[in-house]
């Protein structure tokens, strides 16, 4: 075996030094690449969050308006729904404003109609626009169906049925294949000067019925896979409102269908779609490049009293029975 001596080990030290140097360099480059990618990811995340905030600010503008109705004219949703579309409204040609667009609030340009907004970072006249959003609003009324994406258990959805005739049918989807929500439907109608009430209950599955005791909720008339439907509920003469409340589980894909006519528009609520972008013009594909775009949908239902007002007597204690 050849022994290393002070004289003949200098080459080895050089080689070892080079190897260590190469390893150190590789590690440094890897770390730098990692930091760069992490920074880019963080920047992307921040941009995405900002786009969401922009779209939400658009919704807030509609909700905060004293007359939301005006938005259904100015920003009328031109399709039935945009639920299944990509984040960008499919509007064809990019939006081009006509005429001068006035500056309103600090750095905010408000177009006509009011459904398109651009915002500057500063109030400087020549400051560039950096974010924008586009709104579309549709009344929940004036249609023969009323659609809710979901309805939590023990909460109430109230719908105006004023002046309607014929039947309504409620269909919904269970949380899972075995955890179906039951549904209570309460109709308030006017008989002369007095309000009166009719109540309906629907239990789609014997599996969700096991805790209901002897007087179980009656079943639904059709059970087609996950979607269940009530029998036709004949609206009373003088019908005013219906209140729908899921029990046991959340109800998904709730659809209320009118057999004749449409649900009244007045006070019925709105579907609001808002698309926000960290770009100068959300409607311009070129502007959207390398920017974040987020889209939200908000359903603003008819203003109504919460579910606790569906009881004439309620004992809230979990330790003491209701007795007399």
């Amino acid at each position, binding site marked *: 075996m050849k022994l290393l001596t002070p004289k003949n080990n200098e080459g080895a030290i050089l080689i070892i030094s080079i190897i260590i140097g190469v390893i150190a360099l590789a590690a440094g480059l890897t770390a730098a690449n990692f930091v760069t990618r992490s920074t880019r990811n963080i920047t992307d995340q921040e941009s995405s969050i900002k786009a969401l905030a922009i779209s939400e600010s658009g919704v807030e503008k509609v909700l905060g308006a004293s007359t939301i109705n005006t938005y259904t004219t100015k920003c009328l949703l031109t399709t039935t729904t945009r639920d299944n579309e990509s984040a960008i409204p499919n509007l064809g040609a990019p939006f081009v404003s006509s005429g001068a667009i006035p500056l309103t609030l600090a750095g905010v340009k408000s177009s006509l109609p009011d459904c398109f907004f651009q915002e500057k970072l500063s109030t400087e006249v020549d400051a560039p626009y950096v974010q924008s959003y586009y709104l579309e609003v549709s009344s929940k009324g004036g249609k023969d169906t009323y659609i809710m994406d979901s309805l939590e258990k023990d909460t109430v959805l109230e719908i105006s049925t004023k002046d309607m005739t014929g039947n309504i049918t409620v269909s919904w989807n269970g949380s899972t294949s075995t955890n179906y929500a039951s549904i209570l439907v309460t109709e308030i109608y006017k008989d002369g000067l007095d309000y009166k009430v009719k109540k309906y209950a629907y239990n789609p599955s014997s599996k969700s019925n096991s805790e209901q005791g002897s007087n179980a909720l009656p079943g639904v008339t059709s059970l087609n896979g996950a979607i269940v439907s009530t029998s036709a509920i004949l609206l009373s003469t003088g019908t005013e409102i219906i209140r729908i409340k899921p029990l046991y589980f959340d109800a998904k894909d709730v659809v209320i269908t009118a057999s004749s006519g449409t649900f009244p528009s007045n006070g019925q609520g709105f579907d609001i779609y808002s698309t926000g972008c960290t770009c100068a013009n959300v409607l311009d594909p070129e502007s959207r490049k390398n920017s974040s775009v987020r889209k*939200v949908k908000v359903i603003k239902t008819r203003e109504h009293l919460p579910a606790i007002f569906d009881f004439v007597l309620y004992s809230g204690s979990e330790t003491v*029975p209701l*007795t007399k």
Partner: protein
Amino acid sequence: MKFLLILTTCLTSLFFVCVNQVFASDTTSPISTLTLDPPSSTGQNGWYNQSVDLLINSSDSDSGVAKISYILDSKSTVEKLVEASVNLIDNPSFEEHHNYIPFYWDRPTYSSDIYVSPNYSVDGVYSLRFKSNIWPVNYMTNASYMVTAGSFETYFFSAWLKTKIIGFGTNYEIMAKVNGQNQLIYRSPSYYNQSNFTYLNKTFTTPSGTQGLFVNLYSLGWGDSYFDSLYLGKITSESSISFNVSEEGVHNINYFAQDQAGNIEQTNNSSFKIDIAPPSTWQNFDYTQSGNDHTLILSIDVTDVTSGIDLISGQFQYYIEGIGWGVYTDLKSCSSPFLLDQWRNPTVSYITLPTKAHIVTPAINFCNSNWIQDKKIRFKAKDIAGNEAISPEFSINSPWIYATNFDVASNHSIQFNSTALVDGYVHSSGDIVGVNSMPNIQIKNYNSSVNTSAQYYISENTLITLPENKLPETDGKYKFVGNMTLDIKTINNYDNKTICTLVAIDGSLTISKDLILKDSSSCLIMLVTGNLNVSNSVENISGFFIIDGVFDTGSSNKALIINGGVVADKTVLSRSLKGKANLDNPSETFNYSLNLLFNASGLVSTIENSTYWYEL
């Protein structure tokens, strides 16, 4: 490669269901038996009145049980795999060798024509070839490398064999070292002409004194034989499955097993039925006069949702103050002997066969018209499974409540001694006793998530400070800190104005004067963080009250009518009417004012309860 994949899959799953192979050694299916504990019904008419333990025991004398499956009712299939350990044999596929002599295996010197061959293989490259030209016996053994084993342990052995031989064929032996001596555990049949590799397997249990296991591979004739991919594993789980069923109802169970060779047993079926809970939901208590005013025919409905009501099981007894519970020998005569603690049979008939029954007593003389005295009755009934229940006591002249236009609920149970009348649904986290409801729908054992806290609704609304300790004069939402008493001054002419307000009281509220809203456009919603006490003299209140404390109607013989609603943590409904009035009139009436839904929709609704956000 495909072949290897198939084999690997087979070995991994231990089921060895290889459709392109031949299973010559095990063609019989496993046998499963079901045992119930208790072994026979504990109630009547074939019903169990307790939960039942079920044990499915499967056996297979050849390859052994691989999987047990059962389906209870219409639920999904439950399976149990009978697992074995990793392969305990060294060099099981003969891949390790030196000059084609496999490691960990020994051969007698005269068996020199046994060697590792690449001609055929099940897995890897090699198999063990018997090129047997020398009769009578050639064999290979791993006795020197035996697997350590103990007594009464269950093992699974398998091997693949391809042979074309005449004479006495090819076979294998499973041997045990028992107390230092070799002992044959199993000798396979002889195989002669297996043109494809054939899967052989055996499940066995070691005898007492076992110290180790090994395998002998034999060729007993003339011709070629190939062994490959041997496996010996310890079965680590029982070939049985047990579970408990406590759910009430008629149960149907299908069960079967599959052996290691892939044979599936024909499905067995059995059924049993469980009813643990006795009859419940005593409701629709009623009575009619029959003769004098204290001779009554009483009735009630009772339900058993599982096995149903046994019609001949109904009984009743009643309470005569100063005497006790029992029955008079002659129900119509209080001068006949009183049979203390005795019961009598009423008439029982089905309302809904067989789950709901109607019980009607004969006419009973309650001896006097002194309605201050307590007159009570109670009932017994059995279900068809033999579970007996005694009803709550139903007072004949006890005060009762009437609630109309909307629902009644409790986050605990509902127990009214004298039947309440509810024109709406009834919800309860527990049982519901003593309620007649229209429509007759009662939602029991349901934990509602409706928020009943006044403090919550206060925090959800922007409220104006109520400057004085009295009701406001204009529409709006107000808050007052401190206790408030509503009397002629503090009502502040509220009942003479068309006004709609929400008033939050951070304290307790006493209502000492009748308060009736002026018209249908008026409303009053009060959120009270303390108690709400109603003075004895008050007979009418309008408003919807959400109370974090106690709602007490006061001890009075005047009826109280609440036009609105009451949500309270606890309720004390103490009113009782004079003389015989309780027979016909409610002591407290809760009459929901439906105008509220229209007049007050903007008062309590918040953006949270009418706005639903989704991101697309």
